[in-house]
């Protein structure tokens, strides 16, 4: 299933096919030199979208993807290399491999499968790393693969040329495979897995809190991207007929990454833009490399012009267009509107479904950070149908307690249980799947995704994604943010000067989106960490009404942390007060207001 409007996908698929076929026809008409440039372009583009499937969606830059291209090239080359040639150039090849001689297409298929299996094994190990550690690890992968190809002389001819591969990659073959790769990348981007991965890229913690298992999605995209790289490698091998391990090392990694970065990592549009730009520039510069005559001025041959040119383009892109020339949106997303949601609030089946009444119980929870005890031996019960307020001065451990209950932090001591289920060591995405959803003190939205997508991810990643669209739209309606459904989350709080008034009205919207996202998980328990922060009184009242309606209508249990005592007093059925990590009071609002310990904690000794 895909998560973007069908008109986007149809527009992009049509665009890809028309572009590729037009380019192929034009190049065929222009002659063999253009055909070759376009063939190499298609093959490079396959590799660039292959890298984009992983790096673009996960946000982890990979230097290691040319390993998979290399594996694809060598595996397919070994399969199609004529047996006679193998005897002459690879005399020590194992017998079964020496005798193997398959056709072009079966060789590609086998190469893609072998590479995918390899990627799965490597991915299981690499997946444990985050951020720049993961990037550096991919660099290690590149170096190790290069070393293995060089060292495995009997099979690869070491660092010598691997040659004699039949040159079977025609322009049309490259064009068709390129179309397939682009479509695969485009569909993946807006698949459930792709959307979840992009959410993880935007904000890993929030993605976890709405039920996204980022590692799983990363592994899927890693294997898919490796398969696309292998396709590219097999095609280049059968285009060149000869290559050496150098072809799959730093120089080409640099070239392909340049395409990806210049064009924009996160979109297929970006991959195409980058590949076109860099190919045009290198083709032009390469012609000048041999020296040229400019209006009677004889320029000497300068070899290496191409690399310098690419370097300059990257610098330009980083300064002027850090997200790449194509930015963060697919072309069709700019032209066609995104999701629309009917603002009329409809009572759907989902909204009246009774929720799980089992309370969540935290027993004797303690959290230590080194020598600091942030929460000391606190027990808490969150019941359904009840709004529990959690208050206390700054640094009293409210958020830490919330983090332990929602799986963001594993408690140093104590247990978290819901009925028979022990959630003490559960990951955030597992907690989310037990009907517990939350918002964050510092707004954590998936900035570059639309409001609709922000909410949809949550719906898709919990309860097995059942009735996801319905749940998503209900949540959006419940929060009254239907009019922003197609807007990017990060545009909500910004407006140009002419719309200052509107901007002010919008300023609080990110927080509402966040609550909608939590609701889309169809939770039975909702944790809200300072939901009213930054809202004016009117907006706060509005929010309060919404929350009361939710608990009343749906029987939701709410745990709310806020500094707005008026809000807490009016909203909550029960209030728990923390100070210096320990519970100092608990009870009905009116009792808490009179509690001397609470007054002391807030106001000090009088």
């Amino acid at each position: 299933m895909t998560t973007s409007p069908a008109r986007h996908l149809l527009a992009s698929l049509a665009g890809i096919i028309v572009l590729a076929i037009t380019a192929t026809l034009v190049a065929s008409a222009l002659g063999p030199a253009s055909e070759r440039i376009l063939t190499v372009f298609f093959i490079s583009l396959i590799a660039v979208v292959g890298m984009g499937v992983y790096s673009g969606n996960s946000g982890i830059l990979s230097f290691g993807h040319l390993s998979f291209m290399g594996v694809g090239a060598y595996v397919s080359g070994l399969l199609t290399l004529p047996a006679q040639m193998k005897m002459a150039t690879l005399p020590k090849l194992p017998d079964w491999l020496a005798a193997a001689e398959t056709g072009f297409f079966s060789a590609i298929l086998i190469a893609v499968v072998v590479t995918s299996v390899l990627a799965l094994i490597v991915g299981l190990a690499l997946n444990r790393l985050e951020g720049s550690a993961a990037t550096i690890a991919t660099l290690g992968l590149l170096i190790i693969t290069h070393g293995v190809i060089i060292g495995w002389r009997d099979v690869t001819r070491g660092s010598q040329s691997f040659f004699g591969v039949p040159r079977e990659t025609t322009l049309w073959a490259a064009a068709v495979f390129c179309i397939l790769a682009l479509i695969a990348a485009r569909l993946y981007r807006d698949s459930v897995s792709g959307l979840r991965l992009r959410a993880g890229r935007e904000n890993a913690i929030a993605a976890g809190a709405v039920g996204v298992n980022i590692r799983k999605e990363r592994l899927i995209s890693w294997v898919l991207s490796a398969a696309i790289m292998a396709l590219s490698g097999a095609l280049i091998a059968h285009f060149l007929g000869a290559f050496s391990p150098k072809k799959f090392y730093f120089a080409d990694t640099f070239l392909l990454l340049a395409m990806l970065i210049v064009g924009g990592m996160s979109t297929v549009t970006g991959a195409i833009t980058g590949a076109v730009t860099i190919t045009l520039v290198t083709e032009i510069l390469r012609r000048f490399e041999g020296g040229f005559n400019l209006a009677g001025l004889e320029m000497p041959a300068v070899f290496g012009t191409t690399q310098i040119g690419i370097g300059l383009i990257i610098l330009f892109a980083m300064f002027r267009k850090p997200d790449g020339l194509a930015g963060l949106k697919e072309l069709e997303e700019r032209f066609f509107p995104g999701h629309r949601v009917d603002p009329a609030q409809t009572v759907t089946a989902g909204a009246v479904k009774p929720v799980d009444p089992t309370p969540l119980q935290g027993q004797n929870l303690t959290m230590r950070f080194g020598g600091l005890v942030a929460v000391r031996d606190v027990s808490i019960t969150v019941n359904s149908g009840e709004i529990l307020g959690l208050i206390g001065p700054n640094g009293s451990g409210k958020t830490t307690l919330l983090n332990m209950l929602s799986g963001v932090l594993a408690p140093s001591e104590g247990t978290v249980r819901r009925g028979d289920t022990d959630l003490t060591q559960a990951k955030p995405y597992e907690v989310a799947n037990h009907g517990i959803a939350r918002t964050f003190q510092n707004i954590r939205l998936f900035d570059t995704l639309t409001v609709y997508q922000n909410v949809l991810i949550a719906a898709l990643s919990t309860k097995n994604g059942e009735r996801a669209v319905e749940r998503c739209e209900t949540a959006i309606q419940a929060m009254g943010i239907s009019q922003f459904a197609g807007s990017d989350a990060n545009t909500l709080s910004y407006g140009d000067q002419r719309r200052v008034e509107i901007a002010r009205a919008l300023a609080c919207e990110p927080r509402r989106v966040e609550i909608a996202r939590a609701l889309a998980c169809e939770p039975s328990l909702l944790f809200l960490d300072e939901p009213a922060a930054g809202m004016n009184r009117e907006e706060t009242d509005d929010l309060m009404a919404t929350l009361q309606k939710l608990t009343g209508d749906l029987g939701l249990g709410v745990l709310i942390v806020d500094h707005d005592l008026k809000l807490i007093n009016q909203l909550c059925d029960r209030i728990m007060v923390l100070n210096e990590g320990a519970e100092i009071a608990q009870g009905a609002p009116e009792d808490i207001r009179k509690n001397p310990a609470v007054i002391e904690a807030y106001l000090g000794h009088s």
Partner: protein
Amino acid sequence: MKKLLTLTTIGALLAAPSFADTLRIGAATAQTGGLAPYDAPVMEGIHIAIDEINAAGGIGGTTKIELIEKDVRSDAAQTSIAVQELVDTGVSALILPCDADPSLAAIGIVSSAEIPAISTCASSPTLPMIGGDYMFANFPGDNVQATVSAAWAQEQGHDTAYIIYSPDSQYTTMPLYFAEVFEKMGGTVLGQDTHSIGQQDFSAIATRIAALPEQPDVIMTSSYEPDFPSMLKALRSAGVTSQMIGSDGIDSPTTFSLGEAGEGVVFTTAGYAEEGSPLEAFNAKYKETTGKDSETVFNAVGYDLIKVIEAAVLAADGSTDPKALRDAIANLENVQGATSAITYKGTDGMPVRQVSLIRVKDAGREFLGSPSPDAALIPAPRMQ
């Protein structure tokens, strides 16, 4: 009689040279990367030869040479791309990079386009062997060079040898040919070591050799810069004093600027500028053209390559047809180049040409001779 005369006239007319206006040559050589120290000087020599021929009105006074150049960055894949582009522009002959490995990358294109291709200075005899009818080399073969240096070592009374080679390229496996000839002639090879191209650190190998119970009389390698200078310095600083024997890859200015460590190193190469020799004349011309002294034989090797093509065009009666040129090259005999007389006739594309032995002395060249190797000792070419 009259009829015969007519026939002869017609025949003579038919056979009359039909010189084309231009001969287009495509050069895909390594102007950057590891092979640039060889291909860059070769291209200088090629330009000198082409300018000289064109200044005199072209080959046979009519056929000017047009040269199209591409840089292949010492890379196999890039060679394949560049050669294909050159073929697209309709060249009659191709010039390929210095080493067999990138040149081999062009095999498929060269044989299907049926255009003769000459590697600037690849010396691996396997290149024309695997490359087919259209692939030619322009340098004394590795197996021939190894035979010359092994025979010289034996003559000097050296009985034991040690070889250091790199399996990373065909060329750097020349010591295996050396070991074969050396043993055939009654010598003993005490051992061998391998390294990778660009390794730089040779201390482990040096320590191992220094610790041998018996020090070898000679150490043979065909490694080139930047590996050779590091290897030599590591060996000397580990106290190894064996005679070093190298090959044409170290015929570069670097070798003569190594100071004490470089002194006494012996290597085989494609020629020596004896007094009155064509090489001396070439070097004078080089200085006249470029304003500097030629510091490597590779300048002259480039000049030779164009002389071979010129001779082939003349032998093909001025034809620039690639197939005619191929057949002409394959039958060339004793073409006088700057370094030596060059013969392709009777070979599979690996030319018969002079091998010179040079010893580094006082940071300059000492000529040890240009012995003709015993044909019976020359090992058969093989992929290794």
